[in-house]
């Protein structure tokens, strides 16, 4: 009888471990804005020093998207303005809104990366 209880427990632990592994696998595959941003910003993140501050501009004015970009970039500080010499321009493909083309005057594109959801540009003001 005692042996049977141990067997029941063992089976339960195995079932639990399998279910948990499946769920962790699902979380791994989960796609949210942060994972999409990580994907498009990954090459830029590798380029930059960590003690660096950049400005941020996007065709999507959502505060959430800016906060998520800051999360992806931290400890690099990303400011929601165009004051710094280096500017990140994030194009949200799901939004029709475009940045005024005059904005790009006097700036050079250092890098450009694309994903299915976003386009990321690393811009620098011409000195």
């Amino acid at each position, binding site marked *: 009888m*005692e042996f049977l*209880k*141990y067997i*029941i*427990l063992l089976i*339960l632990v195995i079932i*639990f471990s399998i*279910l*948990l592994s499946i*769920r*962790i696998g699902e*979380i*791994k595959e*989960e796609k*949210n804005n*942060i*994972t999409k941003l990580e994907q498009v910003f990954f090459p830029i993140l590798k380029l930059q020093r*960590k*003690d660096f*501050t950049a400005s941020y501009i996007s065709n999507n004015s959502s505060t*959430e998207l800016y*906060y*998520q970009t*800051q*999360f992806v970039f*931290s*400890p690099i*500080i990303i*400011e929601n303005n165009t004051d710094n010499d280096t500017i990140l321009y994030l194009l949200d493909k799901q939004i029709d809104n475009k940045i005024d083309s005059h904005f790009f005057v006097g700036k050079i594109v250092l890098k450009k990366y694309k994903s299915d959801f976003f386009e990321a540009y690393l811009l620098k003001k011409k000195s």
Partner: protein
Amino acid sequence: MLLLLTISFLCTVILVFSYIENKNLTAPIVISFSINLLLYSFLYFFSLTFKINSYLLIICLLFFSGFLLIVNRMKITQKVNFNINYISISSIIIVMIIVYKYFLRASKWGQWDAWAIWNLHAKFFYYDENWHQLFTNKIAWSHPDYPLFQPLLIALIWKSIGSINYLVPIIFNLIPLIGVVIILNKSVNSKVIGIVLLLFIMFDSKLIGFFATQYADGFVAFYYLLTISLLVDLIRTKFENKINVYLLGIIAAASIWIKNEGMIFFIITCTIIFIFNDYKLFLRFLIGALPVLLIFMFFKYVFAPPNDIISGQSTKTIDKILDYNRYLLILKYFWNIVWNNFPSIILFVLLIIFTPLKKRLNYSFLVIVLSLVVYLSIYIITPHDLKWHLETSLDRLIFQLYPSFLFISFKLLT
């Protein structure tokens, strides 16, 4: 490196456990575990602040705790009874379901505040050279003045595994849920009622969901519960174990290192202990709390920018205090949140009022009630839009006190 961190942590947990005098307290191993979480967050904070290698500190701590364990010839006198019966199998099944439900609600990087505040801060602390960039007004929206317990520990674990991984905050935030389950289960003498209590938690999807958000409120709720359970035990034993009064000081003060609201809870606990006990006991409590208070003050003085609620006060504050519509709105939101998210509070309050109780309410209950009153009072003077502030935070504040409320209610009713 994760192995080194784990071994060191286990050694210090056993060491603190050996110093807890009364092993009949509610879950002494949980108390030891909690104190060590606090200790390791301080250790990493010092390592960053004074630019000392964190592994060096961990190795020192490992040798120190190992040495003390050998010198004291610590013997684990508690025999581990692992009798498998149907009640223990049922308990294990329920705990597994609770954990699984937690994982069902967990998500990559958590809910808004988790990635915008807690996990964001942890990412800063992962980098030895750049962590102080967090304390800038450029990202004031991420509340850099918030205490560091959770971000530091997540960053320390990331460091020990060598990368920033989304699974760490998910698993880390399971700790307070398991802690709450253990303490509530141990709070009742009957194993059958213990099972009922576990079932109660299992079916409370909103409670499990709050822990899965990865907000620091889960740890606040856990440390509040630990403080209340320790206080209840100490009142029951008439404070005969002096060391446990020091432990109470440490545990109560720990909440200020987790979230700013912890200050309210700590000050109320201090006041209540001061009013109902002699000054010697109060002094012991304060001495226990002192290291945590000093480190917290150091952080606030040296690094933290001003808090938004305090710095946002102006001459309009008086008008807000005199505006009775604000009080009505707060009470309306409070009732709606209790009714929709925590209906069991209403049930337990009615049961406590209408059941002839064998036990009497002691002053530990006052700590919870007064904390809630002060929480609600803060909303009167908030510089933010009141509706927005209530909508985004009141449910979490009630959640912080909810496990402690359940603990006291079950103690009274069983």
